[in-house]
């Protein structure tokens, strides 16, 4: 666990950049809803299942979840939009943002901020980083999340943001200490970014 004040972040980041990696990654989890007490439009729908086969498939994918927070798809978009806005405001060399979104929520429209040309909405943002680095691109921000929303969802409410070159680290630290969404996370850690495929630092996902 690390405190999200700038001085503590700078100290921790300096150690990571010196010893392990050019970039840094911040991990945290959503333990309390940032929207607590605020009514919101429910968009939960059910599939019109009819046959035995359909019910069997649907019950096969049911999974019990112990995560304490569930948000709506629109709220998830709002959190991601706030993260990107804070990054834009605080990272002068920000060049491209890779954001994890697993699929369309057909009931909710993506906001313009997530459809921006320097944003890519993808299942596995980390997989794209080596390719962009090869093209000489710096200032890459990855936003990985599995925030659990109202539908069939295996989200564990984890959020991770990372940059992948040393020059981006000072702006990144300002960004994470200014983002309301990041500040609302618990169990925050600063680590070296994992360039593995899919979820970063898979061992954290146990």
């Amino acid at each position, binding site marked *: 666990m690390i405190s999200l004040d700038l001085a503590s972040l700078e100290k921790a980041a300096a150690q990571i950049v010196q010893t392990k990696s050019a970039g840094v990654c911040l991990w945290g989890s959503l333990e309390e809803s940032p929207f607590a007490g605020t009514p919101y439009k429910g968009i939960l729908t059910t599939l019109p299942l009819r046959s035995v086969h359909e019910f069997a498939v649907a019950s096969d994918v049911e999974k019990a979840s112990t995560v304490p927070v569930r948000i709506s798809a629109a709220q998830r978009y709002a959190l991601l939009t706030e993260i990107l806005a804070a990054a834009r405001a605080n990272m002068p060399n920000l060049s491209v943002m890779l954001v994890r979104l697993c699929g*369309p929520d057909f009931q909710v429209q993506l906001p313009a901020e997530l459809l921006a040309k320097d944003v890519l909405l993808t299942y596995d943002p980390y997989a794209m980083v080596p*390719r962009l680095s090869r093209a000489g691109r710096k200032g890459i921000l990855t936003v990985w999340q599995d925030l659990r929303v109202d539908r069939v969802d295996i989200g564990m409410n984890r959020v991770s943001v990372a940059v992948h070159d040393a020059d981006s680290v000072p702006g990144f630290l300002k960004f994470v200490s200014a983002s309301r969404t990041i500040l609302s996370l618990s169990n925050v850690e600063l680590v070296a970014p994992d360039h593995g495929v899919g979820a970063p630092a898979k061992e954290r996902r146990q």
Partner: protein
Amino acid sequence: MNVSSLCVGEAPSLHAVTHWRVESAFAAECESLVERIGLLGHFIAACVQSVAGEEDIHEYDVILCSTYLSQYLFVDEKNYEALCAGIFDGCGIRPLTFLHAYECAGWGYALQFLASQAASKRAIIAIADIDLVNFECFRTHPLIGRSGFGISALRFELPDCQSQDIAITDGPYPESGFREFLHVVRDHVKQGDDTMCFLPYLREDLSAIARRLVGAQSVGEDRAAQYGHCFGSDAWIGLIEWLEASNIREAKTVTATSLAYNGYMTVCPVSVTPETAFEFQIVSGKIEDLHQLIASNQSRHGAMDTSALERMSA
């Protein structure tokens, strides 16, 4: 939307396009979802291989897009891994990434991103829309009509224009952005010297509006009655049928388009030549038929590792 920001005179060159339509439930005989997803991976790989032909696939940036791969793909991380493992077994690469959030417009966002952010020169876009769970409610939509499932692969050479766009990607707009989409298409078709424009397959009344506004002579045939709405593949099926019918003798620039249900659009000029390879096949979703198509593709396009596929059949 400022159409003049498009890379003037240089459209992505389409070297090969394939669509494999799946007529019935995909591999319904597979009892486990993860096995069915693995087979889909092989199926996508074979389709990608069909557009790669003799080219070294490792020279290409390969992105997978989808609107309708069921959300059940994401109910277990093993499922996505099985999809990528199937693709890797089949053609020796993992897709660079998988785009789902942009719905039918994903292929345009992929092309635009690759050109502007990764300086990509060669790209293969795979569009996979398969109903993995065979639910009746996925077969029609009250606004869109009947669904058509299948996969497409597109092989492009991209122009060098990082400072300009190669595709119009825009949104979100209200009411699925239908009005804004048609205006952008109409303005784009008027501005350029494009010969043809391929629109999404639409409900009959919407299609009539589109043809009236854009100009029926410039619009590819709407095949919704025969194929249903095939998500991001509509424009490419239209282009394949047009290439087959028109037997072009010189390079032409056409316009491919897609519109997402939630109001995001792609309008993309594409250059085709008499050498552009095209293929359209219809296959049932039975495992035996899927394997046969994969195997026949393998014999045309050289060896690939089919040991995993054989294990699956055993």
